[in-house]
């Protein structure tokens, strides 16, 4: 098997395109949920979904190219996601306390 062929598939024979497709599908689901759902918590979860879709493609490429930087990016994204979860959940709690609603369309005081 030539080196180019070795790179084309991962060790267990699953081609990289499958990983990328899965990543894209997950990301699209995240985007769709982000745009169309009204519940803040759902929106928030969709953001996490998009982040993890990106993580997946990072890891796939890192494995493909035998490079560690993809892993490192993943860790960074996870750290940021964790921080974001902490802050985001706190904001959601506060919004709910103050407005007794989780509908995202009601939170629009920054208009104009």
């Amino acid at each position, binding site marked *: 098997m030539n080196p180019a062929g070795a790179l084309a598939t991962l060790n267990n024979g699953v081609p990289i395109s499958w990983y990328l497709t899965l990543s894209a599908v997950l990301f699209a689901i995240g985007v769709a949920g982000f*745009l169309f759902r009204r519940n803040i918590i759902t929106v928030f979860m969709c953001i996490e979904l998009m982040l993890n879709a990106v993580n997946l493609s990072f890891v796939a490429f890192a494995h493909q190219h035998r490079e560690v930087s993809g892993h490192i990016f993943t860790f960074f994204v996870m750290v940021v996601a964790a921080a974001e979860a902490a802050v985001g959940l706190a904001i959601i709690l506060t919004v709910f306390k103050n407005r007794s609603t989780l509908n995202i369309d009601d939170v629009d005081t920054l208009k104009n």
Partner: protein
Amino acid sequence: MHKLWLIPALPFIGFLINGILGRKLPKAIINAVACGSVVLAFIWVVLVGMGCDWGATPLHAHYFTWIKSGVFNVGWDFSIDKLTMIMLMIVTGVGSLIHIYATGYMEHEEGYYRFFAYLNLFMYFMLTLVLAGNYLLLFVGWEGVGLCSYLLIGFYFVKKSATTAGNKAFIVNRIGDFGFSLAMFLIVVNFGTLDFRRVFAAAPGKPVEILTAIALLLLVGATGKSAQIPLYVWLPDAMEGPTPVSALIHAATMVTAGVYMCARSAVIFTHAPIAMETVAIIGLATAVFAATIGLAQNDIKKVFAYSTVSQLGYMFLGVGVGAFSAGIWHLMTHAFFKALLFLGAGSVIHACHGEQDMRHMGGLKKYAPITFWTLVCAALAIAGVPPFAGFWSKDAILTAAFAHAPWMYWVGVITAGMTAFYVWRAMFMTFFGEYRGHGHPHESPMSMWGPLAVLAVLSTVGGYFLNVPQMLSGMFPLPEEVPGESMLMIVSITAGGLGILIAWYMYVVNTALPEKITTSLGGLYTLVYNKYFVDEIYDATVVRPLIEGSTTVLWHAVDQGVIDGTVNGVGLESRRIGGVLKLIQSGNIRSYATWVVLGSVVLLLIMGFAGGVH
């Protein structure tokens, strides 16, 4: 060393004490500080004068390097020779007397300490000007005295006319100082230094054109400070200041700075014949012009103000015809008799409870005899009656003018006649006849008539005993003998005597005559009475176009149109664009999210069309 720095430092300390603490000090201490510092400076000048051997080279003291830039080097240098010494004696001597006088004159005025602080500051700058060993330090003093002049003209700052007069003096002097600055730049470019010794040593070898340019620009500076045509207009208005200020600054010392500066730069002037001729003509023209205006003024201080302008013209005439020492001689005697005239006028005004119009005076001989007799000395001196001081110096200038060009002599003699006439007209209107004013006139206190008496003595004998050309014979050659000199002398004395006689006839014997002459002259009298409308002409030709141009072009067009237009335009345009952009700020999170997604899609598309990322 002779501790030359002490001379200006003493008044400066006086200024600091009175300026900072004066508000809380009693008047006795303010008086002691103000007069004491100047009197001590005078004593120190005398001691320095006695301690010097007065060789050919001036005494030079370098205190510190002020500006150093490459080869250009300006030090805080004082230099003292006989010319400086004479000036120092005049400034501190007459200055002391006027300070003492002012303690009496200003007694009931608001801002007593402020007045003396300014006066001491003036002394500091004037002494710096005179002692300076280079042009830049001279310029420091030059500007400093201008500042003090401005402050003191506007001393009664609640009076609109006083502040306007102060502004006028300051602004008109800016024109002269501009010329002075240009002269200094030319000196630096051509000589590489501003130091008097090096400039004067190198001057004879320089091209005539450059020396002429420098001399003419220096003359522009001198016409501003010394109130010569065309920049004399500020001096008559400067009489808004308190009378001691008029005596000290606008008669005896500051206004003579231009004459001093020309005499100091004698080496440059003597090598620039065209400039010399210009100095003489400007001096002569000013002398005649101001004298004719003086004939028709009714305000006693205005008469003496125009007389000062006229006498300064005489000094410039002396300098211009090469008789530098005669010019300085007249500077000195003029300091005596003109300071006396002004202080006497102040005493008269004091006696008449603030009245300055001579038509409301008269008969004061009876009420203020000391003032009268001292003023007689001054008036005889300025009229050129021998042996009073003014006779000697005026005669020296006129003789030198005759040797230079006889027509200048004759114009000078006519001016002398007019001078005698208007000064004695003022004397007769003030002291003779019946008192025409209100209230009860009274003699001034001793602190006022004491200095008058000293100055009267100086005005009487100061010309004969203090023979300046003799003292300065090492620096400036003695004037050459002119054939028929005694004849010239007799002519000028006759002119002076005639002036006095006519004044006596018109204002004592036949008091109806002036009225008749006034009406018969008609337009000519109006012209002279209104000072040839020079102020109005300047107003129409310079001031108004300047204001109009500044208003329409600089203010409305440039400032409001271009600058404000640009600044406001940027702001308005930003608001307009912002107004459009704010429409996408719906506050709806999902619409923001849509924008983000759309933006990313667009970016990705652009990147794709551009060939992707490599």
